[in-house]
């Protein structure tokens, strides 16, 4: 496994882990967003190990403002992440994209795409807003999703521990993975429950095997 840095269009260097033995195909893996990204990180890397074992190179770059990134998350936008993932695809010479959940919203469209259980921005936002309302209620505070959203659009919002800027909130409301030519791997094809639903980060070797196997079918 390699770790290193890659240059983003905005001038920062971001962290990457990957498996590079100069093989083709070369897959850019676009991680899930926000808390789903943290929950699925181990599982994502395990899926990449299986691609490596099957003879495929893959790369998992940080989205600027996430994981090891030094940039503030509240300044990031989906547009910026899209540009960053396109730059990463070029930097690593990717031939294909495997996007996970909300990663499909920022996956570079110029390469063949495989989307695993793609999620709309609206549904990610809905779950985070609801979590915030429930947490506030536990603390004896009344908030509504509508009021939070309105505030988020004008001044940004801290949701589930993630600082979202106003542009990010507005983009999430609209963003849908729908209009691409991507091949979709649905959770029903994989079997079991989606690991992004888990309360704690989790890994499932059977599901990782299955996703790698289904992805391999679309890489050759």
């Amino acid at each position: 496994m390699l770790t290193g840095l890659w240059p983003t269009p905005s001038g920062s260097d971001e962290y990457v882990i990957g498996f590079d033995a100069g093989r083709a195909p070369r897959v850019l893996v676009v991680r899930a967003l926000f808390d789903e990204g943290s929950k699925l990180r181990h599982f994502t890397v395990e899926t990449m190990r299986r691609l490596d074992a099957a003879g495929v190179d893959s790369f998992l770059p940080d989205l600027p403002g996430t994981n090891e990134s030094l940039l503030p998350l509240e300044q990031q936008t989906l547009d910026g992440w899209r540009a960053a993932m396109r730059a990463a695809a070029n930097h690593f010479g990717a031939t294909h994209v495997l996007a996970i959940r909300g990663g499909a919203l920022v996956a570079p469209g110029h390469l063949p795409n495989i989307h695993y259980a793609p999620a709309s921005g609206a549904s990610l936002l809905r779950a985070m807003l609801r979590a915030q309302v429930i947490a506030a209620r536990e603390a004896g505070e009344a908030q509504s999703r509508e009021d939070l959203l309105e505030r988020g659009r004008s001044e940004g919002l801290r949701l589930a521990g993630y600082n979202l800027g106003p542009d990010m909130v507005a983009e999430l409301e609209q963003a849908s993975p729908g209009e691409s030519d991507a091949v979709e791997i649905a959770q029903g094809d994989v079997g079991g429950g989606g690991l992004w639903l888990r309360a704690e980060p989790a890994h499932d070797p059977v599901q990782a095997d299955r996703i790698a196997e289904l992805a391999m079918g679309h890489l050759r």
Partner: protein
Amino acid sequence: MATNLPAPTEQAEDIDLVLRQVLADVLGLSAERIAALDSDSGLFGDLPELDSMAVAGLLTELEDRLDIIIDDEDVDGEMLETFGGLLAFLQAKRADG
């Protein structure tokens, strides 16, 4: 395809099944532990891993699978306290819809 199943009781059992399935997905519990849940089994408050983000995911997934809308005002301690409480809430919600 048309169905001639007797709707009310079948539907109540369906909702029970969906709730167990979603709880299994969220909590990562074994089939045995999920089957052992009864109406007095404690949820929110008894299960430390069920934090606000997990509850939000649970409710959002239940909305999608049962085709219902759960309003913020519906979500309170009582509704989330036990398996039976949440099941009764979902059954009432489906009956309304």
